[in-house]
């Protein structure tokens, strides 16, 4: 069956037009998702930074804490011993 050039061209133009609109829609949708993702990353980074600030502040507070006031006591004696030759193991095989 012969296809006329005008018809073929019309079909091609139609396909390209639809394809172009689809591409635009994809670009805009992708861009919107990307911006949302970037915002989410930024917000999460900020939350992490806040947690890290709290962690470092906790470290500082611990350093300044008086162990005695927290109920801790120094050990009466500390001794180190070398390990024994026989290893104790719960493994059955």
């Amino acid at each position, binding site marked *: 069956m012969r296809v006329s050039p005008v018809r073929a061209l019309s079909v091609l133009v*139609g396909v390209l037009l639809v394809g172009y*609109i689809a*591409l635009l829609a*994809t*670009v805009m949708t*992708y*861009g919107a998702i*990307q911006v949302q*993702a*970037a915002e989410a*990353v*930024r*917000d999460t*980074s*900020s939350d*992490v*930074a*806040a947690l*890290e*600030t709290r*962690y*470092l502040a906790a*470290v*500082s507070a611990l*350093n*300044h804490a008086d162990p005695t006031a927290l109920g801790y006591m120094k050990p009466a004696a*500390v*001794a*180190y*011993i*070398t390990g*024994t030759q026989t290893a104790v193991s719960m493994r059955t095989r």
Partner: protein
Amino acid sequence: MRAAFRFRLRILLAVLGSMALLLLGRLFMVQIVHGAEYTRKAERQYTAGATTLYNRGAIYFTRKDGTLISAATLDTGYLVAINPEILTDPQAAYDAISALTPLDHDAFFTSAAKKSDPYEEVAHHLSQKDGEALSAKKIPGVLVIRERWRAYPGGTLAAQTIGLIGYNDDNTLSGRYGLERYYDGALERSGATYRNFFAQLFSNLGDVFVDARNARSADLVTTIEPEVEQRLMDDLAQVQERYHSKETGGIIMDPATGEIIALGSMPTFDPNNFEHTDISTFNNPLVEHVYEFGSIFKTLTMASGLDAGVITPQMTYNDTGCITVDASRICNWDRKARGVIPMKQVIMQSLNVGASWIATRLGHDEQRAYFTKLFGQPTGIDLPGETSPLLGNLQSPRQVEYDNMSFGQGIAVTPVQMIRALGALADGGAMVEPHIVRKEVLLSGETNALDWSEKTPVFSPQAVQDTVTMMDETMDEKVSNGAAKIPTMSVAVKTGTAQLTKPGGGYYEDRFFHSFVGFFPSYAPRFIILLYTNDPKGVQYSSETLTTSFMDLTHFLINYYDLRPDRGLTEPS
């Protein structure tokens, strides 16, 4: 056939018509239903100059278990701006904003009075919650715009080393001190965190394939351990506060690799809030200031003499308490003579006469050669502004200069140069490359490990071992009269008390520079610690000012890193 053509044409028209209706519907939603919201967004874009949010690479501390904790990162919130052209009720706007954040009354109303100006920023760094609360009030003329800024979760922790950012002449931000400045090229980022590949295809094809700047953008992973850093800063603060010193500093380093675990100096500053800080505080004295460290130099003199073969550990000498060299008097700290004593007493009793004796046996050329090798080239540490040491006396023809240098006077070096040289005693005689950044994590996810493996051999292992034995005995017998000895851990130490120089020449009799160096375990050291305090008041010897801090840090590191005992073990019964 014509009927078939018409049918297909109708279908095509129907499809196009549906799409047109869809687009019209979307237009209605955008223009009418959400019109006001988009107008506000567009206005923000216009009035804020359509700038993208600030972006910069992160700097991380590394915990002992490998966890990364941010030393420098980015925080997100909101800034508040007003449009004086359309601001109808400045008082209401002021009341609403000042309820959430401190706001200067006069500055706000001055901005509000500029009726020809469409954009005036009035408040920064609002939290997410406060920004959203203000935005929800929809006050005409008040713009709540997303903002991002540099934040330092550790505050004063290693502040001079991490550094900070500041504005350039062209109103851009860049690193001005510390790692922020040294690694500015790696840390700076373009505003866009992500690029839209398809949009770039239409508008900016070049950037799709190659962006040279982003190719080298990286986050920095440092060797600094935050809990050790906190401990060090606390100890330094206690010394600084107790003795009202001009400055106090310290470095803790792994002598085998050169990784700096902690470093800091007092006074310090908070890079999150530095507007009222004296600008001189931003400099890092650990690399930029030189000091005469005093008697800790004796360990290097001893190692030099042993390595050169001009002395042996078994040798003795006659200590007369004071000697005269080139018409100058050199005396021990207590001016007392000890008679004939073995070499190790030079270290254990910190005897200037003994150190001078070694220097005389070494000779000018040998001493110059050793000290030049130890201090004559930059350490290469990755911090800006490393200062050269003052080694001019190594060219002197007079013996008194070499004698003085043998006990650390008449020669001035930075703390980083000092710990690098002393680190040779803790690493079998070779100097390592002290460094802060272990690796860069690139945007692509790849890791670029920095190579700091180069070592400079200075002393023989035997010379080092003999010197370390003397330092080890110093700890066990001399520090706090032996009370500081740790039965289960050998620790090699040396204290230093140097007289401060007068501006016009000569030395003060009553003003000192104190130093303390130590490493443990003595014969396979895991850490080397160098502490100093400049011009402490009401005290003479460094054993009085720095022993407590050194012992606190030593016990902390032993416990924190679970270091195994290297002596004093009891066999099981």
